[in-house]
């Protein structure tokens, strides 16, 4: 069993890593990571705009975005992928590769989810910051740009990392529209071998686990550091000692 898995891994690691790359489109793990990184990079600015629209006082901005957020929260990602698969070629009038279809879907989907995080970050800062910035002569947008968003976004770094993890997990759904990612590569391997599906999919699960676990680990460490900084404890050893008892107490259960 273990030997089977090692043998499969030795035979197919290149396919799992980059897909058919020199002879075909880039795929495998590389494509999964590129797709997730690109969608998070694009979803981030989208989410800030959506959050600003949701707290705007203009209904014309607030309502459509609120509807969009509720639709993305209430409808399965799979359904949204099917929509993009149907609509994106119709709108652009071109034969769009499935990678772009998946990217579009993920930007909208994760943008809507992140926008809720951004909005919570802005709201949690309280009115005082905005009032003070305005009293100092900032305009609304200036205050957002220089006072509110830098603080809100700094607190959001761990959430962005955990959104990155869920984006990596969501890219697997590209399988349905044949995006050449890691899951696709694994099912190709499975189709070639035919006899060892359990081993192949277990390898797939292990690879995803390794990646997502590492990022989650990083996010947790960052979160602890940010909490400490926010509490005004700085970075040094003394701060660590101060922060320790609280952590132990909270992890006792």
């Amino acid at each position, binding site marked *: 069993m273990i030997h089977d898995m090692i043998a499969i891994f030795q035979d197919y690691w290149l396919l799992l890593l980059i897909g058919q790359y020199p002879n075909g489109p880039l795929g495998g793990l590389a494509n999964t990571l590129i797709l997730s990184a690109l969608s998070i990079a694009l979803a981030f600015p989208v989410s800030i705009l959506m959050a600003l629209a949701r707290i705007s006082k203009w209904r014309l901005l607030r309502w459509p975005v609120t509807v969009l957020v*509720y639709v993305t929260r*209430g409808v399965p990602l799979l*359904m949204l992928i099917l929509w993009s698969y149907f609509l994106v070629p119709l709108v652009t009038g071109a034969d769009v590769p499935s990678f772009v279809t998946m990217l579009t879907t993920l930007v909208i989907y994760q943008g809507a989810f992140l926008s809720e995080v951004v909005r919570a970050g802005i709201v949690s800062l309280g009115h005082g910051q905005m009032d003070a910035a305005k009293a100092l002569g900032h305009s609304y947008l200036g205050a957002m740009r220089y006072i509110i968003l830098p603080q809100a976004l700094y607190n959001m770094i761990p959430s962005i990392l955990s959104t990155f993890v869920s984006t990596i997990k969501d890219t697997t759904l590209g399988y349905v529209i044949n995006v050449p990612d890691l899951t696709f590569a694994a099912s190709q391997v*499975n189709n070639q071998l035919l006899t060892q*599906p*359990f081993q192949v999919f*277990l390898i797939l699960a292990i690879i995803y686990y390794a990646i*997502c676990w590492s990022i*989650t680990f990083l996010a947790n460490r960052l979160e602890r550091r940010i909490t400490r900084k926010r509490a005004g404890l700085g970075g040094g050893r003394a701060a660590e000692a101060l922060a320790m008892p609280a952590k132990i107490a*909270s992890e006792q259960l």
Partner: protein
Amino acid sequence: MSGFDLSAILTNPEYISMLLHGIEMTFVIAIGSWLLAMALAVLLLALRFSPGRFGNAFVAGYVSYHRNVPTLVQLMLWYFGIFTLMPDWLTSWLAGHNAEAIFAVIGLGLCQAAYFSEDLRSGLRAVSPGQMEAARALGHGYLSAMRFVMMPQGVRNALPPLINHSVSLFKNSSLGIVIGASELTHAVKEVENLSFRTFEIYLIGTVLYLFFSLIIMGLGAFLSMRADPVRRARA
């Protein structure tokens, strides 16, 4: 493709019965896996709180695996992998009893149990330890203190994430299409293939999903309001 025409689908009894069957299957999968997940979550929680390192490490590993591996991959591992390793009598029995739906329930249920148990755990952690001590001082045993003092407060704390995760469980039932379970998304694709009215049937599918999700969210909001003692006293 001719113009937008919802009635072409809504007046066709064949399509309607496909959609109804899809809705039924979606509910069977969603409710089945919810019950499985909740039962397992309570079990995991008990294991986590019980003394001994082994149980604790097992639960931590279980939660970590199910949270860090994509749900779709878990389903594939169950249906394409573990299914083939089962003994023949079990395989043939399952094949005769809608194996796709059964594995969707198992896969989604096991996965969601990890989330539910973490929600319940953090809800319980938010209850002050003094509550437990006070209950014990009043003569409650451990289990009875858990049942009557800790759990009611813990579940109330855990309600918002539990509701969110119930909604995502409902949404995740659409993943059943990948292993061939004939749920709502599957029915939508089927009607699309037969009618070629992609826009209309996607719209119907989206509205149906959104409708049920909003009902779950609304139900959750109602429950949290009911569970809030301050608001209940005021009402």
